[in-house]
């Protein structure tokens, strides 16, 4: 087995190590500097670019504002119109066309039934009292009401025969759908 003898003096070896350390630390420091400078430069560039864009937008916004301010009369007019038309649209959406209800009601009344009174309640019902020739006529009236679209339910609250007048008095409560009466 061949043995190797290191003939380099100890001082020289220390010196070589020191040189290597200096060299390595120099490279490392330069490397760090390059990285920091690169990253710093990138962020600086990016920040500057954004600043320039913001500045450019500021100019554009100022010009647009100046143009818009010249048309302030139109703007006020348009805003007024928009507000009112929005409110009107909302009112029209929830406007109930009772004329339609009356038409449907009229179409449901048989000849043998006469309405004496009619009223609307807040709970989407209408109370109808009247007189009919027979019980069957009242039933027929109820059935005809239910055949019509806006009417949902008919509740017969009271019915009484007046024998001396040969007629039946009735009182019914009819539920209706408001949605069917919208425009």
């Amino acid at each position, binding site marked *: 087995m061949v043995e190797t003898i290191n003939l380099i003096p100890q*001082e020289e070896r220390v*010196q070589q190590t*020191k*040189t290597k350390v200096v060299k390595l630390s*120099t490279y490392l420091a*330069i490397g760090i*500097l390059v990285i*920091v*400078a690169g990253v*710093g430069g990138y*962020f*600086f560039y*990016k*920040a500057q670019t*954004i*600043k320039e*864009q*913001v500045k450019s*937008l500021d100019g554009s916004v100022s010009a*647009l*504002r100046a143009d*818009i*301010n010249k*048309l302030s009369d*139109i*703007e*006020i*007019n348009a*805003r*007024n*119109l*928009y*507000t*009112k*038309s929005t*409110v*009107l*649209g*909302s*009112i029209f*959406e929830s*406007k109930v066309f009772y004329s339609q209800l*009356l*038409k449907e009601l*009229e179409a449901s009344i048989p000849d043998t039934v*006469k309405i004496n*009174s*009619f*009223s*609307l*309640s*807040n709970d989407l019902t209408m109370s109808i*009292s*009247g*007189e009919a020739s027979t019980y069957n006529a009242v039933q027929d009236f109820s059935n005809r009401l239910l055949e019509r679209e806006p009417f949902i339910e008919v509740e017969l*609250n*009271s019915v*009484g025969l007046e024998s001396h007048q040969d007629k039946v*008095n009735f*009182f019914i409560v009819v539920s209706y759908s408001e949605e069917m009466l919208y425009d």
Partner: protein
Amino acid sequence: MTNGQEKAQAEAQQPVPQETAPKQSTSKQSAQTPPKAPIKAPPIVAPGTKKAKKDMSVNMIMFKEAIINYIVPIVCLASSILIGVLVLMPSYNSIPQLSADLDEKTMLEITLRNKLSNMNRLLDFKGIVEENSELVNKVLVSEELVPGLLTQIDKLARQSGLSVNRLNYGLGSSSSGDGKNKAEYNTVTVNLGTTGSFAQLKTFMESVENAARLVIVDNFRYSISNRDEGNEIAVNFVLISPYLYVESSAVTDGPIDLDIADEDFQILINKIKGMKYYNPYEIDTSIPLIEASEEEESEEGEEVLEGTPAETTEEIIEETLEGETGDETDETESIFP
């Protein structure tokens, strides 16, 4: 650089008794010394002595040489720190804020650009905008204009063939829609008592629904009032007419939502165009302005046939007629002399 360092190191390793020995012999001795020889503690040197001064100068030389050796890394690291503190960190920290500003400004610019485009279009169709404004103002007036409203309702009733025997009003406010679309407005509530036929009631109802200024039928009820005269009916209405005063101001950065080409807007305008206009300033001076008391106003719509189910029809009719037509005769005289 390295020669000076070598010398300084050699001197530092020199034992005290050989202090005055020539440099050559010293280096020779240190070269011959085995590497793992125990290090002797340096002797205590009194300060101010020649020896101490020499040591200090040796240390200084070593320090200077170390500085000189590491000058590049030191400068690089110092530069890195400076760049990091003065450039990197401020730039890095400012980017989120700048980006937010940029986004905000971009959005604002887009909004303003759209707004300007929209306004230029409105300017091109200025005539149409003004016409539409006029139409909308006819339907939804800015003030209560009660005399004109009562005149309109009275006219509608009479045109329908109903005879008016009670007409009074109250002021209030209302809202329609819900959530985001909720619209609030002021109202004039009109209580109208009439007599006529069922057909006339229908005609009146259609006329009211198609009238501009806008009148909404809130509630109504009717009952037979006179069987002898062909089943004449007494009808009570609660009518609501909204009005809204709008005074907008120019908000430069705010968008304009009005789009005259929008389908919904067109439908609305066409609907308004189809309504029959009654001049709110055309006033029938013969109609007195009777403002309903709050009690009367609230009861007017409630007073319906909500009697107990056991109540007979006759009783209900009697109650209704007594409550309505009985009082109405006097009021008819007072309203329409």
